[in-house]
C-alpha cells in the first residue's frame, strides 16, 4: 500500500473520535445518574430527619 503511514494516521484519527465519543457519552451519563442518586439520598435523609422524634438531649 502506498502512503501507508498517512492512510493509517487518518483512519486512526477517525476511529479515535468514535472511541472518545462513546466513552465521553458513557461517562457523562454515569455522572448524571450518580448525581441524581446522591440527590435522592440527601432528600431521603432530610425526610427521615424531619419525621424522627426529637432526641432526649434536646428535650432536657
Amino acid at each position: 500500500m502506498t502512503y501507508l503511514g498517512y492512510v493509517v494516521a487518518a483512519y486512526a484519527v477517525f476511529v479515535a473520535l468514535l472511541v472518545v465519543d462513546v466513552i465521553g457519552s458513557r461517562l457523562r451519563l454515569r455522572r448524571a445518574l450518580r448525581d441524581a442518586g446522591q440527590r435522592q439520598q440527601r432528600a431521603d435523609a432530610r425526610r427521615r430527619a424531619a419525621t424522627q422524634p426529637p432526641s432526649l438531649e434536646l428535650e432536657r
Partner: protein
Amino acid sequence: MQSIVRWFHLLGSPPVFDRFARRGSRLFYLAALPVLALGLWQALFVVPADYQQGDSFRILFVHVPSAWMSLFVFALMALYAAIALVWKIKVCEVLAMACAPIGAGFTLVTLLTGSIWGRPMWGTWWDWDPRLTTELILLFLYFGVIGLYMAIEERRSAARAAGLLAIVGVALLPVIRYSVDWWGSLHQGQTIRLFGPTTLDASMQLPLWLMVIGTKLWFAGSLLAKARADNLQREAGKDWVQRALGEAP
C-alpha cells in the same frame, strides 16, 4: 398518522424522552457498528487504488463523511435551537446542545484527515484556502457554542444564548459549501451529487455511502446518549428521575 403526531408531541416530555433515548442510543450505536465496519473494510481493502493518488485517496472515505457531518450537525443544532427558542421546548434545547460536541469532533476529524491527505498530495499540511479556512471557522463556532453553554450557570439561559449563536452561525454553512466555486480554491470541487451526475468512480461509491450512513447512525446514537445525560442532570430531583434510577442504565 394521528398516533405518530401524538408520539412526537409526547417526545417533548423529559421522562418520555429519557425512555426513548435510553433505548434509541443503544439501538443506533449497534446499527452503526456493522455499517461502519463494512464501510471501513471496503474502503481499506476492497476498493482499488487510485491511478493518480495511489492509496492516499482512501483517506476520502473518512474525510468526506466527517465533513458532511460537520455541516449537517451544525444545521441540525441550529434547527433544534430555533425550535427551542420559538416553542420553548426543553428537550430541543437539550438536543441542540448535545449536537455541539459531536459536530466539533467531526469538524476536527475533517481538518485533521484533510491535513494528513494534503501533506503527500499538496505538499503541505495546511493552506489558508477558502474551504479549509471556513471549515476552521466552523470549528471555532462549535467551540463558541460549547463555551457559551458552559459559561452560563442557569441551564435554560445558557441554552438560549448558545442556541442563538448556532442560529447566527448557520450563515457560514453556504459559504463553506460554495467556497470552492466562489473563490479559486486549492480544494477540489464537488464530485459527489445527490441530484445530478457524480464524477466519483462507481467502485468507490459503495464504501463512501456506507460510511455516510454509518456516521449518521453513530451520530444519532451519540446525540441521544448525550442528550439523555443532560436531560437527567437538568431534571435531577424530579420524581420521574428517581423512578428512572431504579431502571438505569
